[in-house]
């Protein structure tokens, strides 16, 4: 089948990961932050699938399933909290979460 250098796949994953990270760093909107997190998780998922493909075992895909589960769980809880926040502040601004400090 396909023959690709591992480095390139990894580099792609790293790039996707970093783009997601930039998103988390830059965005003030919590929904965007959640989306960026999804990007990061997908990058890692790609690594596992890549690994599974290279080694020819199913562990990578199993981990992918796990990541999927995690993503679902996270999004569910995260969105619940975001909705709460929106009800409280009428805003999705992450920077308003700075009551606690020091």
């Amino acid at each position, binding site marked *: 089948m396909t023959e690709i250098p591992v480095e390139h796949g990894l580099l792609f994953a790293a790039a996707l990961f970093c783009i997601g990270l930039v998103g988390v760093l830059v965005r003030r909107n919590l929904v965007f932050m959640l989306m960026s997190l999804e990007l990061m*998780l997908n990058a*890692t998922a790609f690594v596992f699938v890549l*690994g599974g493909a290279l080694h020819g075992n199913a562990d990578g895909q199993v981990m992918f399933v796990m990541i999927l589960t995690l993503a679902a769980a996270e999004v569910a809880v*995260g969105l619940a909290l*975001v909705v*709460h926040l929106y009800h409280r502040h009428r805003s999705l601004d*992450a920077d308003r979460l700075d009551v*606690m400090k020091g």
Partner: protein
Amino acid sequence: MDAAGLKALTPLLLLALCAVGTMLLAGFRRNGRLAFYSYQGGLLLALLSLTWALPERSLEVTPLLRMDAFFGYFAVLFILSAMAIGLMAAGHFRRGGGRARVEESYVLLAICLLGALVLAGAQHFAALFIGLELMSVASFVLVAYPCGGRPVEDGVQGNSLEAGLKYLLLSSAASAFLLFGIGCIYLDTGSLAFAPLPPATTLSLPGLALLLIGVAFKLALVPFHFWSPDIYEGAPTPVAALVATLSKTALFAAVLRYVWYGALLELPGLATAVAVLAALSMLIGNLLALRQRHIKRLLAYSSIAHLGYLLVVLLAVGHAGLAIDAAAVYVLAYSVTTLGAFALVGCVCEAGAEADYRLEVFGGLLWRAPCLGASLILVLLSLAGIPLTLGFIGKFYIFAAGVEAGLWWLLGVLVVGSAIGLYYYLRIVLIMLGPAPEAGGIGGRRWLVYGLALLLVLLGVYPLPVLSWLPVL
């Protein structure tokens, strides 16, 4: 999975049953007390089941878990911690009055504990990951748990919501790092089991580094510590106790096992990185706590420092025969002490209508409530590692492991960090000896505090029962 494996899994199954059962119970009949008993009963059963379920010799149950003395020790510790947290939670969540919904908290706590046990036995990255996420997801909710002294209509309190969101977002980002790291290792070795790395590793080193980042975040090591004071402050006190003890110690246990199986810290770069994190945590954690006026934040910073101390042990693994023992003892000491501290916070700070976490609330405590005051002194002495408390035994073991492994510079940092730590522990004592605040009440579960304090002293004076039971690995 054969019968022996199934038998060994009994505690975990019981816990899962406990979680589901409690949920179902709540579905049928909403009663906080019932849920509490269901939870504690389940935990107790799990604890008792350990006595027969634990295999004589180390047993591999599926590729994921290994049931051995190590698991047994930590399982007991975690279950007991969770029971104590459950006790605190019962007191805490009930403050909201009849409207507060406490049942779910027990479900989540049980799931959390399940994750902790998985971590204690984990010998596989998938187990590490799932255990960790079980705890994380459950604690996201628990941190933001709607409850407390305000009308239920308000739902999640401001600080809790803020804490929950922060925890969720930051933790997810850290999980991503962790996963990326695991992915790299997997890519390199083709296996997810905890095992020594192949000699010619290329990707494992960056993988381990990324893994370390994720772990360091969960353990709140400097510079990944930013979340912890906010979470401690915002979370309900029992949940803060949970985050401080269970979720950190369980992960530490898993990491310890990995380091130990994989002989990882032979890699020079990684050892240096861990040492740097340890040193930073010890110093900066203590410095941050120095003049902190909020007790929960102070405890957060203090636990950052304590995890820094624990990392010293991690570095000693493989070089010091005492290392695993030291970790076990210190985790025990840290858990008991921290739980005691949070139980005290529950008693003293949340007695009034409005919770007040300023240190001044402890003013005159020794005269107002001598037993509580004495307990507080004991807890603080234990945190500071003064003899005749369990904290000292823990610190002694850390020093022993450090000396045995010849980690002189880290020990030096440890001494400096401890010296800084003495300042703020003593400061609380001094505040406690000073004038009482205008509105200071005492409430909550005192006997839990007394029990933990007594445990601190008893095991501090005569730790032999624990020491001789330590996982001989």
